[in-house]
């Protein structure tokens, strides 16, 4: 293998650098309560992700985890703009989207640890977090499917005459699978109240997305094929995401049909816990670290007159909640035979014969 050939080592490719922060967003029409709520949520998602990583290293979280570290602004911005009855459909990288809809930290962390007090009783694990009571309709671990399922929830809302909207989050890699295209077409022909949110973190697992996609913007450049507007937002800025979410959700509620939003962001870590992410240019990783959503948003809130103490109180509150959630998870029992055979069928059991 040549040592200096970017075809063999993607880390040698030119870095893809983030756009500068849009400073005009400080003046955007977003209430301070909403902004502080988003600040809290950013921290919750960040600290939860870090704790999940730590517990993995302690062998308490088994299997795999796909973290949203660095990408928290997308789930945060949408979570703040969505109404309680709206539906979220996420991927295996779904912790942030689950917590953004109000999933409790303790049961979420316990699920990652395979405990009976987990939100799925230990049956789903890290890749399938679901809290239907809060509109979090599932985390789907096979690329593409859940865009089609989100259509179904949106179709149902349309038929029932509610103003609910379904939001499907997915990665840039999803734009190259057939289900993405089937879903967009059906959503458009039926004017479904659904928002498709592509989190473009520039890498399909370990491969740069631009190397394996026919167009530079994997989602936005496909929008016109389905009669949709191309929308690209700064996925590292919660205000930018929130404004885009508010527009897309309003469109859907007014019966104007689906939207496709491409939020450009970056994973600060690897694809999954097994991946150190060494295929990325160092200058690129460093530049995106400078655009980490949390310090940027911290500074924006200070510039808007929020006292530093208010922000540090939020950080401390969240840290305490994460510690309590960790204790909750650690204290959970490992599930056993009592539930192994339950909930395969709607009668609560798994009986397939008489």
């Amino acid at each position, binding site marked *: 293998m040549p040592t200096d050939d970017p075809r063999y080592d993607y880390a040698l490719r030119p870095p893809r650098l983030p756009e500068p922060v849009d400073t005009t967003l400080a003046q955007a029409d977003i209430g301070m309560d909403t902004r502080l709520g988003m600040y809290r949520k950013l921290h919750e998602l960040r600290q939860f992700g870090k704790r999940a990583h730590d517990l993995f290293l302690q062998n308490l979280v088994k299997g795999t985890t796909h973290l949203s570290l660095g990408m928290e602004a997308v789930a945060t911005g949408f979570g703040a703009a969505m109404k309680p009855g709206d539906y979220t459909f996420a991927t295996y990288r779904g912790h942030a989207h689950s917590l953004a809809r109000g999933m409790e930290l303790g049961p979420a962390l316990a699920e990652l640890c395979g405990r009976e007090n987990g939100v799925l009783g230990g*049956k789903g694990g890290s890749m399938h977090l679901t809290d239907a*009571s809060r509109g979090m309709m599932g985390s789907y671990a096979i690329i593409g499917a859940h865009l089609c399922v989100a259509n*179904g929830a949106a179709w149902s809302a349309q038929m029932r005459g509610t103003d609910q909207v379904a939001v499907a989050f997915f990665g840039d890699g999803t734009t190259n699978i057939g289900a993405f295209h089937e879903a967009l077409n059906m959503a458009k022909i039926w004017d479904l109240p659904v928002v498709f949110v592509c989190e473009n973190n520039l890498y399909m697992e370990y491969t740069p997305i631009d190397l394996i996609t026919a167009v530079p913007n994997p989602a936005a450049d496909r929008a016109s094929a389905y009669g949709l507007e191309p929308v690209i937002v700064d996925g590292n800025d919660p205000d930018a995401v929130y404004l885009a979410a508010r527009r897309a959700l309003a469109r859907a509620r007014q019966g104007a049909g689906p939207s496709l939003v491409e939020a450009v962001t970056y994973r600060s870590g690897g694809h999954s816990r097994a991946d150190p992410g060494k295929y990325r240019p160092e200058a690129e990783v460093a530049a995106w670290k400078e655009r980490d959503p949390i310090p940027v948003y911290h500074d924006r809130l200070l510039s808007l007159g929020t006292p530093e103490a208010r922000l540090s109180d939020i950080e401390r509150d969240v840290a305490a909640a994460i510690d309590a959630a960790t204790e909750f998870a650690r204290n959970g029992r490992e599930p056993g035979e009592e539930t192994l055979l339950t909930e395969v*069928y709607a009668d609560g059991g798994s009986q397939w014969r008489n």
Partner: protein
Amino acid sequence: MAELSYRDAVAHGIAQEMRRDPSLVMLGEDVAAAGGVFKTTVGLLDEFGPERVRDTPISEQAILGAAMGASMTGIPVIAEIMFSDFFAVCFDMIANEIAKSRYMTNGQVSFPLVIRTANGGGARFGAQHSQSVENWCMMIPGLKVVAPSTPQDVVGLMAASVRDPDPVVFFEHKSLMADKAVIPDGEIVDELGTAKVVRQGTDGTVAALALMVPRALEAAERLAQEGISLEVIDVRTLVPLDTRTILDSVSKTGRFFTVEENPRLCGWGAEVVSIVDEEAFWDLDGPSIRITTPHIPLPAAASMEDLAIPSSDRIYKTVLGSVDG
């Protein structure tokens, strides 16, 4: 009392349920204005309108995704996949998403939906439009699997499938579409998980499904002339599986045969035979015998397809050669 064909019974059964439950909807390719490529949904658009009976693009994943998402949020759905062979392009939805999400979420979500599909051979369509794929679905925990053989069972089991809170895969046999029968007036509701003894006998038991049921009955009629009394069971639903009816019959007759349209390996009969072996072995007077399509893709030529799929003559000869009258 009205005479209905198997194909008319499909629309009849769906209409019965759509009248009962105004929230029930259906979707699929060519199901609305065209009435289905097998004419199994004729009249539904006229009666229930374009909001409840929807034509879709050729997008099998989107069809089943829509069914899944709607059913998990309060709208029961009947989805048609035109040919069961096409399950292969949307099997993620069937096997990974619809079947498993209830268990994975520890019961947070339910999927009251029916996936209808045209299944089986005999129409000379070749290897990609003729398969019997019940076993593809039978092997997936979380699904229920139904394959009726008569017009009345189509109506009654359709009603049972729609009313079932779990996802049901409903196989309609292409070569039974023209079969006619008189069915009773009024609502017909059957029960999943119930096999039916369609011919009483004492010398052997044949379990058959869908198109294989009339063929087994024809063979049994000929065998009777040879002094062999064959009991024929229409299995009707593979999941839930009515093992009790089968085991009781085998215990009575002492011999067991399955007639399966699927290629040999891992057909539904293999599971049933293993159950008979484990639970009725000491009642058997000889080995269980599976009569199946050979382990080949189905050929298109009429003469070859007829050789491949179990015929009543093959059933007759196989049973005759192994049962003492």
